[in-house]
């Protein structure tokens, strides 16, 4: 946000700290274990969708293979634990490495296409990945998948094989993710990535290597997707190909669109909606999927830029009310972000 108003900045920081404190004490507030489970899943999805956001929201390439990276991360760390007895930290590091390798291999040919063609190529990769995970039974356990033993590590003395302990681990990764995306988009490199989204010809005329930036953004999305996958693996301690099928690529896309891509908090809101909404709709019993679809269609129609757009407008309006000094121009600009 472009503002020199220190009081306002201070106020925003205070709010952010309050939100963080709420999240830290959330396991004490949320006593129903099942809800804590949904929150953990939402945070894992937030990491996943933040990755998607880098390539889709900031670079402008709609990727349909984020769910495949999720699967690759899960299988990588899961298989290393099962076969080579690697620990949680090593598994996550391996997932990062795998994300970089696969991201580069897939990005190289697919990023030469544009628009819908890129989406189709990445969707094809998701289907291919699903086929490999299901078909290579010797390694992956085929359609039934495989289970691993719960992690033995602990965090600040809280064992990570408890739901609370794992919640804190995922929370740390989610906070690191949001800090990473915020810093990255505000940096020289991040601006070059956004320049590619805005105008590729102009970007190359100011010295941006357009293809390299696209590949970098795709690799970042792959790495975040793989980290999310590894975190998911060691949370549920079981993996099968079913969760990484092409139809789930739609769920990642929805989480991005419903929340609002190209923004920091959009993926967070989108992830919570996509994880929580089906549970809220349990009352509809048989018609749950139908209701889920209808609610999402309404959201996408009513708010084509995602839920986050009206929320930021409300937020800047509230800030302007509190700090009347700000001029209108700043407020409208901030609401466009």
């Amino acid at each position: 946000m472009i503002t020199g108003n220190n009081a306002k900045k201070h106020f925003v920081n205070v709010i952010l700290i309050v939100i963080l404190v709420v999240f830290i004490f959330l396991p004490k507030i949320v006593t129903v274990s099942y809800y804590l489970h949904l929150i953990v899943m939402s945070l894992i999805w937030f990491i996943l969708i933040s990755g998607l956001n880098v390539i889709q929201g900031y670079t402008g390439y709609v990727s349909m293979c984020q769910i495949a990276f999720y699967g690759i991360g899960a299988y990588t760390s899961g298989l290393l634990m099962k076969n080579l007895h690697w620990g949680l930290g090593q598994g996550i590091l391996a997932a990062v490495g795998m994300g970089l390798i696969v991201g580069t291999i897939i990005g190289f040919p697919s990023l030469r296409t544009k628009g819908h063609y890129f989406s189709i190529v990445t969707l094809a990769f998701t289907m291919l990945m699903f086929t490999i995970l299901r078909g290579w039974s010797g390694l992956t356990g085929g359609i039934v998948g495989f289970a691993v033993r719960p992690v033995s590590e602990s965090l600040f003395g809280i064992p990570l094989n408890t739901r609370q302990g794992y919640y804190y681990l995922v929370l740390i990764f989610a906070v690191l993710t949001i800090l990473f995306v915020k810093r990255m988009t505000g940096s020289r490199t991040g601006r070059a990535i956004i320049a590619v989204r805005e105008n590729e010809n102009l970007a190359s005329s100011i010295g941006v290597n357009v293809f390299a930036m696209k590949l970098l953004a795709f690799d970042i999305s792959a790495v975040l997707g793989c980290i999310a996958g590894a975190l998911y693996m060691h949370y549920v301690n079981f993996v099968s190909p079913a969760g990484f099928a092409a139809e789930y690529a739609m769920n990642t896309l929805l989480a991005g669109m419903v929340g609002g891509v190209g923004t920091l908090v959009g993926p967070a809101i989108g992830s919570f909606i996509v994880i929580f909404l089906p549970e809220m709709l349990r009352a509809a019993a048989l018609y749950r999927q139908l209701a889920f679809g209808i609610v999402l269609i309404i959201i996408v129609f009513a708010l084509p830029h995602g839920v986050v757009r009206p929320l930021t407008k409300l937020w800047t309006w509230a800030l302007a009310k509190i700090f009347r000094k700000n001029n209108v121009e700043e407020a409208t600009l901030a609401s466009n972000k």
Partner: protein
Amino acid sequence: MLLQLENVTRYFGGLAAVKDVSFGIQEGQILGLIGPNGSGKTTCFNLITGLYHPSEGQISFNGEVISKMPPHVIARKGVARSFQISSVFPTLAVIENVVTAHYCRQKSNLITGLLGIAGTRKEEKQVREHSGELLEFVGLGDKAHAEASALTSADQRRLMIAIALATEPKLLMLDEPCAGMTDEEQTAIVALMRKICGDGIPILLVEHHMKIVMEVSNHIVVLDRGEKIAEGQPEEIKNNDAVIEAYLGRSEKERA
């Protein structure tokens, strides 16, 4: 010569869009590149900036052959351009457009950016200050926080010049900077071009308004159907029979 085209030819299919064209631009010059529609002016621009590569001949900049290099490398060597159609970063604020364009002169990378080390923060501060100065320079100081797509087309053309200047070029190439402008706006752009040239950045100018080209250029190259038909001082060009024939037309001469 800062920029030198030597016998440059570019075919599209069997058709030569630019044929055996040679010219050069020196320090301190404003070189006008003129010709009727389809004469190959914009193709020349795209050849110099690396969007296309010459089929024959070569282009050198600062003594280095650049005709095989990709656009971003040529930009980093110091060739900046504006585009014929308005070309900005539309959803970003005007100031962010210019900040982004400092890309090729900044040194920070993803790691230093993520860590926010002191050197990077200082560089960011300098870039923001310099962006503000550039906006003042092109006359957009009061619109710094507007969204680029909300600017009028004349203002977008000013913004394109600011974006080009932010790359700290050794050569500035402007493709119809006055298109769709009123007389006063044109006068302001002419003054701006003189100031830029005075600051030591030579300009290669493509422009349809003859009055402006004649007024601002100190050297003119005339293209017709991809070939160079004349070159010289504005006065010489005005009285060159081939140019009058091919470009200005007879009625134009009678009117003059």
